[in-house]
C-alpha cells in the first residue's frame, strides 16, 4: 500500500506538471503569418529548377524555409531577427552554375541561424539472411546507390497549395526500377501548433516545418531488398555529434513507438542552448494510410563529418564553403519485418525547425480519464486511511479497566 501511495503521488505530480505546461506552453502557442511563393524573382519561364520559398513572419523575426530541387532535394531554414527580411536570388548567376553567393537573405546582418537538410542517396541492399543489419553485410550485398542529385525532380502541380502551405516534389531517374515509381518529398509549413493527422502524427509548432518522404512503386532489385536513406545536414551553428533518442511513455499518437530521435544544433560556446533541430520518430510505414501492423522501426547511424558541402545547388548558393557538413543514414526495417516488395511503399516523416524541438504530452482524453478514474479512489483511500487512523487512536485501550 505504501508503494502504491508513493507511486500515485509521483504520478499525480507528473499529471499536474503536464497540465500546467499544457496550459502555459507559450513557445508552442506562438503564431506566425505564413506566405508561400514559387521561384521568387524569376522573370523567365521555369527552367525545371524550382525553389519554394515560405516566409513565416512572427512579431519581430522571420523564418524563411526554402524547399528546393536543384540536384539533390533540400530543405533550408534561415532565421532573421527582422520581420522585413526577404530572399534575393541572382537567377542568371545560378543558372550559369555560379552557385556561390547567388542566394541571399537580405538584410544579411539580420541572419541569426541557418541550416539545411539534404537528401543525397538512396541505398538498396539484398538482405539475404533477414538481419536488417547493413553495417555487417559485405559490399556485394549492396546494389549501386541511387544518387538523388542525378534524379529529375518536379513539383506536382496539384500539390502546390498556397492556402495550406504545402508542396510535393517527386523525382525519378531513368532506370527500370523507377519506371512507374517515384521518390517524393512533401513539405508543409505551419502557422501555429498542431499535429499531423496521419501517423507518425508529429507534433509541430509555428517554428517547424515537416517533410514527409516516401518511396512509391519502385521495383526492387531483389526479392529481399531493404532501403537506406542518406541525408546530409549543414548548419551555421555547431551540430551535435550524435542523435539524441528520448524515451517517452506516451505512444497515443504513434502507437507502439515510445522513442523520439532529435539532432540539434547549438552555438559553439553554449551547448545547452538549442538553435535548431531535426526531429523524427524512429518508425516508417509500409502503406499510404497506415494501420498498426504497417509500422516498421527505423534506425539511424551516428553523424559523420564530410569535407564538402552537400550536392545541392541551392545549398551551395546559400552556405559558404568551410562550414561543417554531417551525414547520417536512416536504415529502415528490422530483422523479421516484411521486405519492401510486400507493399512497394515506404514512408518516413521528419520535422525541421527553429529553437527547441516540440515535446509530446498526454491528450486531454487520457488526462480526464486518469484524473477521474485515479484521483477519486486515491482520495477515498487517503481520507479512509486518515479517518481509520484517527478512529483507531481514539479507541486506544486505556490499560486495565476496573472490574467493578
Amino acid at each position, binding site marked *: 500500500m505504501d508503494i502504491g501511495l508513493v*507511486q500515485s503521488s509521483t504520478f499525480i505530480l507528473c499529471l499536474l506538471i503536464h497540465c500546467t505546461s499544457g496550459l502555459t506552453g507559450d513557445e508552442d502557442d506562438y503564431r506566425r503569418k505564413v506566405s508561400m511563393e514559387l521561384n521568387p524573382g524569376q522573370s523567365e519561364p521555369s527552367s525545371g529548377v524550382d525553389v519554394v520559398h515560405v516566409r513565416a513572419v512572427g512579431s519581430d523575426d522571420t523564418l524563411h524555409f526554402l524547399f528546393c530541387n536543384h540536384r539533390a532535394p533540400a530543405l533550408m531554414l534561415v532565421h532573421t531577427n527582422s520581420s522585413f527580411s526577404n530572399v534575393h536570388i541572382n537567377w542568371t548567376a545560378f543558372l550559369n552554375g555560379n552557385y556561390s553567393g547567388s542566394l541571399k537573405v537580405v538584410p544579411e546582418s539580420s541572419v541569426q541561424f541557418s541550416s539545411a537538410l539534404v537528401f543525397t542517396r538512396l541505398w538498396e541492399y539484398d538482405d539475404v539472411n533477414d538481419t536488417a543489419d547493413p553495417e555487417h553485410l559485405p559490399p556485394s550485398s549492396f546494389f549501386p546507390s541511387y544518387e538523388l542529385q542525378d534524379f529529375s525532380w518536379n513539383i506536382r502541380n496539384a500539390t502546390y497549395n498556397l492556402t495550406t502551405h504545402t508542396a510535393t516534389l517527386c523525382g525519378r531517374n531513368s532506370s527500370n526500377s523507377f519506371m512507374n515509381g517515384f521518390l517524393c518529398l512533401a513539405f508543409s509549413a505551419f502557422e501555429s501548433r498542431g499535429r499531423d493527422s496521419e501517423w507518425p502524427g508529429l507534433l509541430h509548432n509555428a517554428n517547424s516545418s515537416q517533410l514527409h518522404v516516401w518511396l512509391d512503386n519502385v521495383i526492387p532489385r531483389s526479392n529481399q531488398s531493404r532501403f537506406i536513406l542518406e541525408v546530409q545536414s549543414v548548419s551555421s551553428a555547431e551540430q551535435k555529434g550524435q542523435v539524441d533518442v528520448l524515451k517517452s511513455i506516451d505512444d497515443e499518437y504513434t502507437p507502439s513507438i515510445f522513442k523520439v530521435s532529435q539532432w540539434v544544433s547549438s552555438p559553439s560556446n553554449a551547448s545547452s542552448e538549442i538553435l535548431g533541430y531535426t526531429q523524427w520518430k524512429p518508425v516508417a510505414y509500409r502503406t499510404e494510410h497506415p494501420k498498426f501492423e504497417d509500422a516498421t522501426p527505423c534506425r539511424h547511424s551516428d553523424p559523420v563529418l564530410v569535407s564538402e558541402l552537400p550536392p545541392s545547388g541551392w545549398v551551395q548558393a546559400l552556405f559558404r564553403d568551410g562550414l561543417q557538413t554531417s551525414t547520417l543514414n536512416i536504415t529502415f526495417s528490422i530483422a523479421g519485418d516484411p521486405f519492401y516488395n510486400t507493399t512497394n511503399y515506404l514512408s518516413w516523416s521528419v520535422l525541421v525547425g527553429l529553437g527547441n524541438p516540440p515535446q509530446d504530452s498526454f491528450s486531454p482524453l487520457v488526462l480526464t480519464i486518469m484524473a477521474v478514474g485515479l484521483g477519486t479512489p486515491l482520495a477515498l*483511500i487517503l481520507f479512509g486511511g486518515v479517518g481509520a487512523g484517527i478512529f483507531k487512536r481514539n479507541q486506544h485501550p486505556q490499560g486495565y479497566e476496573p472490574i467493578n
Partner: protein
Amino acid sequence: MAGMGEEEDLITEEDPLTGQGDGSARARRSPCSDPAHWLHRIVVLVFMCFLGFGSYFCYDNPAALQTQVIQDMKLNTSGFMQLYAWYSWPNVVLCFLGGFLLDRVFGIRLGTIIFASFVFVGQIIFASGALFNRFWLMEAGRFVFGIGGESLAVAQNTYAVNWFKGKELNLVFGLQLSMARLGSTVNMNIMGWVYDRIKDLMGSAGPTTLGIALMIGATTCLFSLACALVLGFLDRRAERILKKEQGKTGEVIKLTDVKDFPLQLWLIFIICVCYYVAIFPFIGLGQVFFIEKFDFSPAEARAINSVVYIISAPASPVLGFMVDRTGKNVLWVACAILATLAAHMMLAFTFWNPWIAMSLMGLAYSLLACALWPMVSFVVPEHQLGTAYGFMQSIQNLGLALIAMAAGAILDNRGYLFLEVFFCACICSECYLSS
C-alpha cells in the same frame, strides 16, 4: 464441492454389500492397482492434473505467437484478439449447461472424454486454419476449443471431488491449478522456439509454418485426451471394484434463482469481470508491448509475459492458506485490486523494470482468485451456489470476449498507453465497488 465437506473419506468406507469375498479379493491387489490405496490415487491424481494441461497450453498459443500470427495471417490487433473472443463466446452459455451435461446427459466419464475431444479437435481445426491460410477456420477452431476448454475444467474438479475428500481436496485443487499454470508457462516459453525451428526447416515464415507449429501444440491436447480415456477407465474400474457411484458435479442450475441474488453478489460479479478483463487481454497483447517499450528481445518478452502464471503456480496454495486463516476476504480483494492497479500504472507511466510490475500482478492475481471465489459461498445459500458460480463464469467469459475485442481495437488506433489507461480505469471502477 461446497456441499460435500464430509469428514469421512467415501472411498475407504467399508461397503456393507461387499462382504468377505471381495474384501479378500481387494487384499490380493497390488497397491498401485487397488483403487482404495493412496498410491493408486496418486496415479489417478497425476492423470487428473495432466487432463487440463493441454487445454491451458493451447489457450494461450495466440499470445505466445502474437507477432507471427499477425504477420503470417496478415491481421490487425482486433482480428488477432478475435481468437480470444471466440474462445469465450461458447462459455457464456456453457457455464450453465456444463454441470447439467456432466450430471444428467453424459456422465462424468463420457463427458470428460467428449470435452477433451472437443479441445483436441478444436486445436486441430485451429491449426488447419493456419495451414490452409483461412482465418475464419482458425476462429471456428477456437470456438470448438472453447466449447471443450471450460467444461473440461468443471469435469476435472468433479473427478477431484470424487476421488479426494476433506483436507486433501484443497491440496488437489491447488495442484490442478498449478498444473494449469504450468501449462500456460511452458506454452509461453516454448512455442516461439518451436516456431523458429520450423521456420529454419521450412526456410521461410508463413501460414504453413504457423500451422505446423500449432499442430505440434495440438499433441498436448492429444495427451490430455489420452489422460481423459485413462481416467475414464480407472474410474469405471474403481466403481466396479469399490461399488461407488459415478461422481456428480453437485451443481444444480436453476435460472430462476438469479432474481434472488443479493446486491453483494452482483458486486462480486462485477469485480470479477472488471478484474479478469484487465489481466487476460493484457497478457494476450503483452509480448509486443514488452518488445517495443522496454526493448526486450522476443524470447525475453515471452518469458516476462508468463511471469503471472509462473508466480501463481506456487503462490496460490500459500495465499489460499493465508486467506483461510485470516478470513478477511474483502480486505484481500481490495489489496489485490490495488496491487494490480499499481502494476498497470508502473507499466504505463514508467520505464521501471517490468519484472517488478509483472511479479506484483502475478501475486495480486493469485490473491484475488483465493479471496474472491470463496466469497460467493458466504453470500449465497448452498442450494444456489451452482447457479451463482455458473453465472459468474458466464459473465466473466462474456466480459472477456467483449473486452478482448475492445482491447484489440484500442491498440490498433490509440496505442499502448491508452490501452493501459483503459485497464487502469477498469480496475479503478472496482475500487469504488469494493469500498
